[in-house]
């Protein structure tokens, strides 16, 4: 069964440079994400369908602003959550279950390198999502506000949200069983899609619920993006603080409770 290809097994151990290790792992993470149909449904297909569907069909009362101007920031927020939280929680949960995290931790990649690679892959996917969603939104007549300062605010909001969602994803994947993570991550996705100001304005909720809803990371992100992109505000301080708080608390909890196997 084996041919006799000569191989030199003489020990010559040495780690590759850290950048090469992390890039190789990030490349693999990215290919696995792009090859996974369910992940693509979650990260690309559903956000685009929501954007197109709710823009075209007049079931949404978006006031005087055009519907797409209201929807695009919400869908961008949803896309960020789907990649950084839902997708990452599910894939990491199963990698933990199958001993992949443990195995990679025993290579020169190291655990820190693995986390860096995952973050990099998530950021690349989010860039792809942003480009695709913006393109579709522009085709639907989107006219975002904010200018150059707005772009900076959007990037800041997205990065903070990615940190918060990733920390929460790892907290879930590193503590629950893989199947429980799968179920919980999907449930959280659906609940936050409904509550988080993604396609429905949050002021539809009873005033008593509003502080709770506005404290959710998805609401902070969608409201923050909307304040910048639809209303032209410079830097929405409230949402930035909410996302910062989730990032710090999430990272602290994940760091404390995450189990590699």
């Amino acid at each position, binding site marked *: 069964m084996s041919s006799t290809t000569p191989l030199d097994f003489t020990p010559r151990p*040495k780690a590759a440079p850290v950048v090469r290790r992390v890039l190789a792992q990030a490349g693999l993470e990215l290919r696995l994400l792009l090859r996974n149909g369910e992940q693509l449904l979650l990260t690309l297909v559903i956000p685009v369908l929501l954007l197109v569907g709710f823009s075209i069909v007049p079931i949404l009362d978006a006031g005087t602003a055009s519907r797409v101007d209201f929807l695009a920031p919400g869908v961008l927020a949803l896309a960020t959550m789907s990649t950084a939280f839902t997708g990452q929680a599910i894939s990491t949960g199963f990698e933990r279950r199958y001993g992949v995290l443990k195995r990679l931790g025993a290579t020169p990649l190291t655990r820190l390198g693995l986390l860096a690679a995952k973050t990099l892959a998530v950021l690349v996917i989010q860039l792809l999502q942003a480009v695709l969603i913006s393109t579709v939104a522009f085709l639907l007549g989107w006219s975002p506000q904010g200018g150059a300062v707005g772009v900076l605010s959007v990037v800041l909001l997205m990065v903070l949200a990615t940190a918060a969602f990733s920390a929460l994803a790892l907290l879930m994947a590193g503590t629950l069983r893989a199947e429980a993570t799968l179920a919980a991550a999907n449930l959280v996705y659906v609940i936050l899609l409904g509550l988080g100001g993604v396609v429905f304005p949050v002021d539809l909720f009873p005033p008593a619920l509003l502080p709770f809803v506005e404290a959710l990371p998805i609401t902070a992100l969608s409201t923050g993006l909307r304040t910048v992109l639809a209303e032209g505000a410079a830097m929405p301080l409230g949402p930035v603080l909410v996302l910062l708080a989730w990032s710090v608390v999430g990272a602290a909890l994940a760091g404390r409770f995450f189990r590699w196997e």
Partner: protein
Amino acid sequence: MDTPAVEVTDLVKRYGTVTAVAGLSFTAARGAVTALLGPNGAGKTSTIEICEGFRHADAGRVRVLGLDPIRDAAALRPRVGVMPQSGGVPTGVRAGEWLRLLAAFYAHPLPPEALLDRLGLSAVARTPFRRLSGGQQQRLSLAAAIIGRPELVFLDEPTTGLDPQARMATWELIGELRTAGVGVVLTTHYMEEAERLADHVVIIDHGRVVADGPTAALTRGDRELRFRAAPGLDVSDLAAALPPGCSVTERDAGQYTVTCADPDEIGPGLVATVSTWCASRGLLPEDLRVHRRTLEDVFLELTGRDLRD
């Protein structure tokens, strides 16, 4: 280079109230094959995972290439290859992709394509891990353990579940690693694997070492010649023809055994004597063979239990 590859002293590992490893000590030399042999649940995997830095020891001292597997993990990672008992690979990753990824972690890796070819995995290089057969998954894990050209590899049951050809190929590969100077520590519950591969065998049962030594030393000792023929034969003239110090007995009906005080007497001459005696009687000796003590015999003698328990 004078420290051993692995040095384990009085290792203890408990899981709740269960003691998996109960004061275990052994040494594995560099550039040699050391087999941890024992039945399932003996504590082999716990021991090897502590050596790999995956688990903390509850007591005892473990040194791998002279270093602490947990404290010095960063220094050890490039030098040590690891093959877990199962899993460790994302289900959707392709065989070739996984090896290329691991190769990218090392400065001087083996060429992934050649290694795939060597392990008979070229045809499935583009197949996702979850669709590989159990044996193919095992071989991919083995390839991943050695791709970085480590000086020491830990293989946890490298051939469990392999078909005979794949097992033979894995044995050959382990032999080549040894020849190239790679230290190998493997666990197995196949005594023939330990006998065939290992320079040194550590037999483990209930978390303790029950025997430890060079493979040849463990299995040396009384050889004997056995054959089957009709029951109840008069063997007195055969006994007379045997060299001094040798005797023949019928242990079970029709099962004859020749033993000698000096095991070196069990040689070609003795086989000829027995054959000649059978021929003179018109008997065909069935299953005529020189039986050597196996690790299974050693294990049975030491524990009174079967290795496959």
